[in-house]
C-alpha cells in the first residue's frame, strides 16, 4: 500500500448493540453511514491530482466512426485531452483478455478499441478536464462523424434468425432434454392451454449510477473505487486488459448504491477511467449520467410460447415452454428462462426450448431474478389460464400437481416447504373466500381481483475464502472480498461471525469490498449468504480450534478438554460442563504473548452431496388488484408473499429483501419498460421520469411470511438466498388478479392502462 491509499474503515455496529443471535432481526450496521452521508460511494473518493472524464456516446446503432474533431473540445479552458480509439494507451487486443469472470460465450466488447460502432450509445471517446463542468462542456463540443450501416433491433421481426446459444456462462444450464413425448401428450389431451407472451426490455437503474475513481499513487499503483458487485472481478479485468500485474491494481467497492445485477460485469467507465489515468498519469474520476445507464446491459426482451395439457380432473399431462430472447451481436447472453417449467410441477411429458436472436444492442446482463422474472411469469399465467379451463381453483390446481421430486431429474429436494408457503400465504390472504368466477367483486368504477402464483429460484452455493482474526483487544476481525449492494451483507456477515463466538455485534469487524481480501464470488444469484456466510462461519470455527489449542497450552483444564466440550460465549472460552472454568479471549492472547491469532478458511461446496438433490427456494404470492377497466388503471392493494428459503439469518434484512422484490414485481407487472426507436436502433426511455418504477403511492401493504425450513445441504448455515425469490411470480400474480377482476387476459409486460383498458 502506498501513501495515497487510505485504509478502509468498515461500518461497525454501534456500541451497546449487544448480542443478536442468528435468526433475530438486526438493524443495518451500515445504515447510519448511509443516511448521514459519510459512506463514500465510487464517485465520492478523491485525490489532490484528480481530474474528471466525461464519456461521449455514439449516436448511431451500427457503422463506423469516420472522424473525430476535437478542436473545439481542446480549446475549452481546463480541457486535458480526448481519448478515443485513435490515441488510447496500450491495451491488449486479444478478446480473451476482456472476458471477465462471468462473461457469457462470444467476443466481449472492447471499449475504444477501433472505429466500429456496434450499438447506439457505445462509448466513442472520453473527454478529460480539470473539472467536471469543463469536461462536460468540452464533451458536448466533440465533433464525431459516422458512416451508418443498417441495423436490426427488433426481436419479433428477427425471430426466424434465432440460434441455439453458447452454453458457456457461469450459472447457466441449457434446457434439459425432453422428458416423455410432450407434443404427443398435448395432441392427445382434452384440456389445453396454448398461449404466447411478450416481455419487454428493462433496465436496472440503481440509484447510484456507474462510476469509477482511479487514484494513482506516485509509484504508479492504481487504487480503483469502482461500482461493481465484485472488486476482484474488476481487478482481474483491469489487470488482463491493460497487462497490469495484480500488485499494481487494487479495486475497492466498500459501498454500492444498488446494482441488481448491472454491476456483475465491469462496465465501460472502468476501462475508460484507467486509460485516462495511464495516459495522463493522474487520478481520474468517470461517472455515468442517468441517460448513459441505458447504454449498459439490460433485461432482455422475450417472446414465449407455453402449451399445457391436463386431464379433465386437472392432472398435468404435458408442459411445453419455448422462449426466444435477444442478445448482442458479439456475445450470447444466456439465462434460465424456461428451465423453471421443468422444476415446478409433476408431469411425465416436458419439453423446453430456449433460443437467442442477435441484435444490434449491447449485451444484456443479469437483472434481479434473471430469466425467472420472465419465464415464471409465462408459466404461472398459463397455469392460471388452465385453472379456468378446468374451472378449478388456481391454488388447488397447483397443489394437485405438486412436485414431490424434481420432475426432470427425479432427484429429491434438499428441502421444499412450498406446501407450507401455499397454506400460510392463503390463510393470511383469505384466499378461501375467493369467488371462482372473474368479474365477481365490484366497487363503484373498480373491479376487484385476486390472483396467485408460485415462485422458484435456484439455491446456489459457490466457493469462497475467508479470514478470521482475534486481536489482542478481544476484537474479532473477519474478512472476505464480498460485496454489499444494499442487501445487508455487512450486517449479516457480522451477525454470523458474532454468533459463532457469542459476541456482541460491536465486537466484530467485517472487512469486505477490497480485491486484496480473501477470494469471494461475484455478488449475485442469491448466493452470498450461503457462500460467504458459510466461509465466515467456517473460518470462525477454525479460529475457535486454534484458540482451544492456545488455551490448552496455558491451562491444563483445557488441554484435557476436547473441542466439543468447550464453548465460546460472552467473550470467553469456557468448559461447557464448568462455565466457571473460563478464559477471556483477550486474557488468553495476553497470556500467550500473541498480538493476534488468525486463520484462513476455504469453503468448497460439497458438490458430491449437493448433486444428489434438487436445490431451490420457493414462494407463493397472493395479490389483490382493483381495476378501473374503462380507464385501464390498475392498483395493487394487497400482496402476501410466503417464502421458503431455508434458515433466515436476519429476518429484518430478509423481509426488506422480499418486500423490495415484491415492489419490483409490481413495477415489472405494471410499469417498467425501456422503449427502443427501432428506426434509430436507440433506447429512448432514458430518464427516471420516463422509466417508471413503482412510486410510494403504487406500493400496497405487503405481508412477508418466512415458513420454517432448514437446508444443511445447500449451506452449513441452513440458509438459501433471498435476493431474487421475492420478485419471482409477482408479475404473474398481478396478471392473474387482473384477469380475475375483469375477465381480460393480458399476456405482455408491462400491463399499462392502454393494454388493460377494456375495448
Amino acid at each position, binding site marked *: 500500500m502506498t501513501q495515497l491509499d487510505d485504509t478502509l474503515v468498515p461500518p461497525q455496529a454501534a456500541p451497546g448493540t449487544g448480542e443478536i443471535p442468528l435468526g433475530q432481526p438486526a438493524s443495518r450496521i451500515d445504515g447510519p453511514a448511509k443516511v448521514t452521508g459519510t459512506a463514500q460511494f465510487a464517485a465520492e473518493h478523491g485525490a489532490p491530482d484528480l481530474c474528471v472524464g466525461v464519456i461521449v456516446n455514439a449516436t448511431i446503432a451500427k457503422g463506423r466512426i469516420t472522424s473525430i474533431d476535437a478542436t473545439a473540445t481542446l480549446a475549452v479552458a481546463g480541457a486535458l485531452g480526448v481519448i478515443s480509439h485513435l490515441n488510447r494507451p496500450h491495451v491488449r487486443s486479444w478478446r480473451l483478455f476482456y472476458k471477465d469472470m462471468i462473461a457469457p460465450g462470444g467476443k466481449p466488447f472492447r471499449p475504444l478499441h477501433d472505429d466500429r460502432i456496434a450499438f447506439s450509445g457505445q462509448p466513442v471517446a472520453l473527454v478529460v478536464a480539470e473539472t467536471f*463542468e469543463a469536461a462536460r462542456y468540452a464533451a458536448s463540443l466533440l465533433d464525431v462523424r459516422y458512416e451508418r450501416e443498417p441495423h436490426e433491433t427488433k426481436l419479433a421481426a428477427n425471430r426466424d434468425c434465432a440460434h441455439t446459444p453458447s452454453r458457456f456462462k457461469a450459472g447457466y444450464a441449457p434446457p434439459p432434454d425432453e422428458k416423455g413425448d410432450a407434443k404427443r401428450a398435448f395432441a392427445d389431451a382434452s384440456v389445453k392451454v396454448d398461449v404466447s407472451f411478450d416481455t419487454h426490455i428493462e433496465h436496472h437503474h440503481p440509484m447510484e449510477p456507474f462510476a469509477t475513481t482511479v487514484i494513482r499513487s506516485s509509484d504508479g499503483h492504481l487504487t480503483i473505487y469502482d461500482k461493481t458487485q465484485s472488486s476482484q472481478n474488476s481487478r482481474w479485468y483491469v489487470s488482463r486488459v491493460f497487462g497490469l500485474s495484480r500488485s499494481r491494481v487494487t479495486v475497492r467497492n466498500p459501498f454500492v448504491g444498488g446494482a441488481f445485477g448491472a454491476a456483475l460485469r465491469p462496465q465501460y467507465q472502468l476501462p475508460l477511467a484507467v486509460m485516462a489515468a495511464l495516459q495522463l498519469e493522474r487520478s481520474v474520476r468517470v461517472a455515468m449520467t442517468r*441517460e448513459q445507464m441505458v447504454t449498459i446491459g439490460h433485461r432482455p426482451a422475450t417472446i414465449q410460447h407455453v402449451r399445457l395439457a391436463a386431464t379433465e380432473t386437472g392432472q398435468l399431462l404435458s408442459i411445453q415452454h419455448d422462449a426466444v430472447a435477444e442478445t448482442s451481436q458479439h456475445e450470447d447472453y444466456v439465462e434460465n428462462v424456461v428451465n423453471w417449467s421443468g422444476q415446478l410441477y409433476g408431469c411425465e411429458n416436458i419439453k423446453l426450448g430456449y433460443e437467442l436472436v442477435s441484435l444490434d444492442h449491447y449485451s444484456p446482463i443479469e437483472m434481479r431474478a434473471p430469466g425467472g422474472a420472465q419465464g415464471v411469469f409465462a408459466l404461472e399465467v398459463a397455469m392460471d389460464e388452465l385453472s379456468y379451463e378446468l374451472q378449478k381453483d388456481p391454488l388447488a390446481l397447483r397443489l394437485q400437481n405438486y412436485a414431490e421430486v424434481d420432475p426432470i431429474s427425479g432427484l429429491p429436494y434438499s428441502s421444499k416447504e412450498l406446501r407450507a408457503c401455499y397454506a400460510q400465504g392463503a390463510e393470511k390472504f383469505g384466499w378461501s373466500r375467493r369467488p371462482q368466477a372473474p368479474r365477481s367483486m365490484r366497487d363503484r368504477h373498480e373491479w376487484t381481483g385476486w390472483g396467485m402464483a408460485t415462485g422458484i429460484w435456484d439455491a446456489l452455493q459457490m466457493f469462497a475464502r475467508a479470514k478470521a482474526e482475534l486481536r489482542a483487544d478481544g476484537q474479532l476481525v473477519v474478512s472476505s472480498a464480498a460485496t454489499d449492494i444494499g442487501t445487508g451483507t455487512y450486517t449479516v456477515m457480522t451477525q454470523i461471525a458474532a454468533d459463532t463466538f457469542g459476541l456482541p455485534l460491536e465486537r466484530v469487524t467485517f472487512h469486505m469490498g477490497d480485491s486484496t481480501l480473501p477470494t469471494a464470488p461475484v455478488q449475485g444469484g442469491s448466493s452470498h449468504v450461503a457462500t460467504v456466510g458459510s466461509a465466515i462461519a467456517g473460518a470462525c470455527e477454525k479460529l475457535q480450534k486454534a484458540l482451544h489449542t492456545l488455551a490448552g497450552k496455558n491451562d491444563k483444564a483445557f488441554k484435557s478438554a476436547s473441542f466439543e466440550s468447550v464453548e465460546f460465549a460472552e467473550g470467553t472460552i469456557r468448559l461447557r460442563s464448568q462455565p466457571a472454568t473460563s478464559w477471556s479471549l483477550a486474557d488468553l492472547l495476553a497470556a500467550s504473548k500473541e498480538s493476534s491469532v488468525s486463520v484462513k478458511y476455504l469453503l468448497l461446496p460439497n458438490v458430491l452431496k449437493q448433486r444428489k438433490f434438487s436445490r431451490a427456494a420457493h414462494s407463493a404470492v397472493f395479490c389483490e388488484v382493483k381495476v378501473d377497466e*374503462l380507464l385501464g*388503471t390498475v392498483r395493487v392493494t394487497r400482496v402476501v408473499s410466503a417464502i421458503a428459503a431455508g434458515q433466515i439469518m436476519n429476518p429484518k434484512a430478509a423481509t426488506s429483501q422480499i418486500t423490495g422484490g415484491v415492489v419490483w414485481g409490481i413495477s415489472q407487472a405494471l410499469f417498467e419498460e425501456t422503449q427502443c426507436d427501432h428506426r*434509430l436502433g436507440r433506447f429512448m426511455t432514458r*430518464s427516471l421520469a*420516463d422509466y417508471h418504477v413503482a412510486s410510494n*403511492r403504487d406500493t400496497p401493504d405487503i405481508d412477508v411470511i418466512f415458513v420454517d425450513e432448514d437446508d444443511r445441504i445447500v449451506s452449513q448455515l441452513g440458509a438459501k438466498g433471498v435476493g431474487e425469490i421475492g420478485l419471482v411470480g409477482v408479475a404473474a400474480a398481478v396478471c392473474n388478479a387482473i384477469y380475475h377482476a375483469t375477465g381480460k387476459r393480458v399476456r405482455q409486460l408491462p400491463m399499462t392502462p392502454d393494454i388493460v383498458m377494456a375495448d
Partner: protein
Amino acid sequence: MNPFSYVAAKEPGSAIAALAANEGGGTACMIAGGTNLIDLMKQGVMHPTRLVDINALPMAAIEPMVDGGLRLGALARNSETAYHPDVRQSYPLVSAAILSGASPQLRNMASNGGNVLQRTRCQYFYDVAVACNKREPGSGCPAIGGLNRYHAILGASPGCIAVHPSDFCVALAALDATVVVQSAGEERRVAFADVHRLPGDRPHMDTTIASDELIVAIELPANSARFANHSAYIKIRDRASYAFALVSVAAGLDIGDDGRIESARVALGGVAHKPWRIEAAEELLQREMPNDEAYERCAARLLEGAVGQGQNDFKISMALRAIVRALQTAAAGTRIDTANPGRPDLAARE
C-alpha cells in the same frame, strides 16, 4: 452544459432589461424554480449564455382582487398555490390539478409562471443525438412514426406532435384564467387560451410570450368560482404519482337550483400542444340535467378531429371515457383530493 453568466434581478424592470440585453449573440433565460430549465441545460437542449434569477422579484403573493377574483403571483410555488385556502375554497380544480402533477419536492420548487412556460417532455426533444423540430427547426420529427404513446391526438402538425405536459394549465384553461405579462414598454393581459400555441410550422415556439417578457401573475376570474362546488380533475397516467398524463380532464359544472347545468367547463391535458378546450362542446351541456348522454355528446365534440399517431390511438377512447368520468365526478360534488380516478382512499394521504 455550456458556461453561462448569472444575474439576480432585484426588480422586474432590471430583469426585463437583463433578458433583452444579449451579450455576444447569446440567449438569456430567466430562472425561477429551475425544475425544468436546469434539466434542459444539463441535457444540452437549451444553452442560455445568461441566466436571470427572478426569485427575488415581488411576485410571490396570492391575493384577492378587487373584483372578487384571485391573483396568483408568478413566483408563488405550485405547492403554496395548491394549499392556499382561497384556492382550495374557490378554485379547488386548480388545487387538484397541481397536486396530481410532479412530486412534492418538485411542487415545492416549481413556480406558477414557470409551470406555464415549461416545455414538452417528448423524449426526442430531450435527446440531442436525434432530430427534433422543436429543438432544431427543420431537422424533422421522429416522434411521427416513432415512440408516440404520450403524444398529441389533437391540433398536431406534420412538424410536431408533442404535448404540453402541465396539469395546472389544464385547470387554468378551464377556468378562463388570464396571464399578466410585463415587458419593457408595458403590461399586457393574455387570455389563457391564447398563451400556448399549436405547433403549426413553428413548433419551436411554445407560447405567445416573448423571451424578454415576464409573467407577473395569473388571475382567476371571480366568475369562475361558481364551479367550486362541482369540479373534478381526472388524470390517467402510467403510475399513481410522478407521471405525466396520458389523458387528463379538468371539468367544472355550475348547477342551478333546478338541478340543471347553467354552465360547464371542460379542458383536456396530455392530448395537444396546449390545454384543449372547445367552447361549443361546453355549450352542449347548458340547460341539461346532468346525464351521461349529454356528457358523451360533449366529449365527442371536444374530440372532433382527433387522430392517433399509432402508439397513442388508445388516447381517443380513453379521453372520451375520461371526459364522461370527470363530468360524472364533478356533478357528484367536488372532493378535495388529487381527483385520481379510483383512488378515493388516498385523498386523506395528500
